[in-house]
């Protein structure tokens, strides 16, 4: 280790060379958790949960739709949080975390939109209506895409970090504004003609399935983000000795396999 490990126990992991192995060790556990919970959730959703009285079987989309929608919003908040931490404390790792989160957030956003659209066709008769919640979800996707496009378009990593952090924060300030404005806009024009028809008196099994799936997607996010951030750390820290050692180990592993 080139740098001495300083500081209290938790902050120690803010140093990339400590975080890197930790991430490597944690990720498989989260991935395993995600698989198990997904299986449980699907079992609850498809086997235990009863057919919905009004919607029939279509409602089973809910077991991914709602967790995906929740995750997509939650991930943006986390992203903005790490960006703020990065800007204030000037820790490179935080920027990396927010950049590693973005693609997954965008992915969940697409999933929520897609499943919502597929769900909308049989229930509302159209794949898309300009409802407040749908619209703000679409705008959230644009916020993600803007963040990703901006950080990709900038070559200099330090500039990319900071520029991305700024736009993530600006976006975060705007998320509630967007949400409420869209909501108001829609109710002004539409009245109640379109609203999310909540499954009446959601059965506890349904709720349980949804919650299990939500935790599963949370675990999945952690796993995939940790996996994604690891090569990013290597890339950034490539001039340090510990990355050199890590790469040698990696080369040996590859050589051994070949």
């Amino acid at each position, binding site marked *: 280790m080139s740098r001495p490990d300083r500081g209290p126990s938790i902050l120690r992991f803010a140093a990339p060379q400590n975080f890197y192995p930790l991430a490597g060790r944690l990720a498989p556990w989260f991935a395993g958790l995600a698989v198990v919970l997904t299986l449980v959730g699907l079992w609850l959703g498809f086997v235990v949960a009863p057919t919905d009285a009004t919607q*029939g079987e279509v409602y089973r*989309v809910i077991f991914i739709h709602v967790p995906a929608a929740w995750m997509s919003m939650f991930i943006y908040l986390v992203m903005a949080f790490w960006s703020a931490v990065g800007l204030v404390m000037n820790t490179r790792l935080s920027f990396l975390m927010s950049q590693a989160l973005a693609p997954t957030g965008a*992915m969940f956003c697409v*999933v929520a939109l897609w499943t919502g659209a597929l769900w909308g066709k*049989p229930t509302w008769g159209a794949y898309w209506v300009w409802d407040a919640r749908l619209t703000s979800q679409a705008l959230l996707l644009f916020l993600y895409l803007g963040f990703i496009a901006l950080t990709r378009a900038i070559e200099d990593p330090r500039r990319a970090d900071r520029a991305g952090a700024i736009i993530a924060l600006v976006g975060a300030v705007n998320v509630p504004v967007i949400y409420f404005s869209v909501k108001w806009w829609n109710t002004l024009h539409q009245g109640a003609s379109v609203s999310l028809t909540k499954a009446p008196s959601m059965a506890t099994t349904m709720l349980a399935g949804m919650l299990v799936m939500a935790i599963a997607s949370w675990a999945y996010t952690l796993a995939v983000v940790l996996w994604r951030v690891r*090569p990013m750390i290597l890339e950034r820290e490539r001039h340090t000795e510990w990355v*050199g050692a890590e790469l040698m180990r990696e080369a040996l592993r590859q050589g051994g396999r070949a």
Partner: protein
Amino acid sequence: MQWESWSAFWNMGGAAFYVWGSYCLTFALIALELVLVFQRRKDTVNRLLRWRKAVGRNGRGNEQRAAAGPNGVAIE
């Protein structure tokens, strides 16, 4: 148990397209994301290994290149 048979299960009460369309796309996207993540890892490691070989052990340039200068033009 809700389902009379497998075919009833796959049919999803007539909503097969919507339900399975949702789940298929979701899992396809997740699979794609995982593939991309691991591919990126492999690419990065290979690229960095190549880079290290080119630049020298510590990322600091080996003696020969340092002496030759950045353009390979010897500096007197």
